[in-house]
């Protein structure tokens, strides 16, 4: 894929250095999204386990910060 970058009013193809910067930002975002999804999954797992212990949804949300 050819990345296009804009410098003020000029649009052109990215240089290798600029492309590397874009790809680095994307890689960081992928890692952050994976961490975010893992946190969501852990929260859901914790809620399920708390429910299995007999806590109501209201009690679970009081513990984990949800409503």
């Amino acid at each position, binding site marked *: *894929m050819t*990345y*296009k*970058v*804009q*410098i*003020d*009013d000029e*649009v052109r193809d*990215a240089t290798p250095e*600029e492309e590397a*910067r*874009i790809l*680095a*930002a*994307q890689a*960081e*975002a*992928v890692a*952050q999204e994976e*961490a*975010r999804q893992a*946190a*969501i999954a852990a929260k859901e797992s914790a809620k399920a386990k708390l429910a299995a212990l007999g806590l109501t949804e209201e009690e679970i949300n009081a513990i984990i*910060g*949800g*409503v």
Partner: protein
Amino acid sequence: MPFSSVLGASSVIRPGVCTSTTRPSVPYEGQLIYETDTDMVAAYNGSAWFYTHSSGLVLISSTTIGSAVSSVTVSGAFSSTYENYRIIVSGGVASGSVNVKLQLGSTTTGYYAFRIYGQYNAATVTGEQTNNGANFYMGFASTNTIFGIMDVSGPNAAKRTTVFGYGAVPALSSLGPQIVGGFEDSATQHTAFTILPDSNQTFTGGTIRVYGYKN
């Protein structure tokens, strides 16, 4: 007939046009001038000159985002003229839902920040840190629009740059409105910044406006 029509735009005589160091030496009360070095209008009150808009946001630049670009750099945004800035990106579309990131100059490391965001479809709040990252979260974009606001303090000073911003996802997703704050850990004196999506998406259209906070 306006005075300017008689003299012409290219005339060497341009009444009321000067610089902040070449103001009229014998002004009269009520006299107005335009300073070409500050881009400010000043009035004389009988004893001193004062700017008619002495403080507030001053538009520094307005950049229209091109078609299907993966990043947009605004050069000459920061200088010693202002300490604090506001960057607003709005309008346009992205090729898909994506975070809008902000990078200062060519610095791609040393970004520390924390963002808190909610969801439209759930009453939950989530926090997320950027620990020595490559840029800041600034806002969001989707096929509907692009939106993000960031206040930037001291980007052109030889010390850490501090930011605080907010945005909202213009689409239903597991992300919603957010606030974000942080700093960039260097003494680099930045003059430019870059807006970029954090996934394999592009921006088309919209405007990036930079304002300086005039004291």
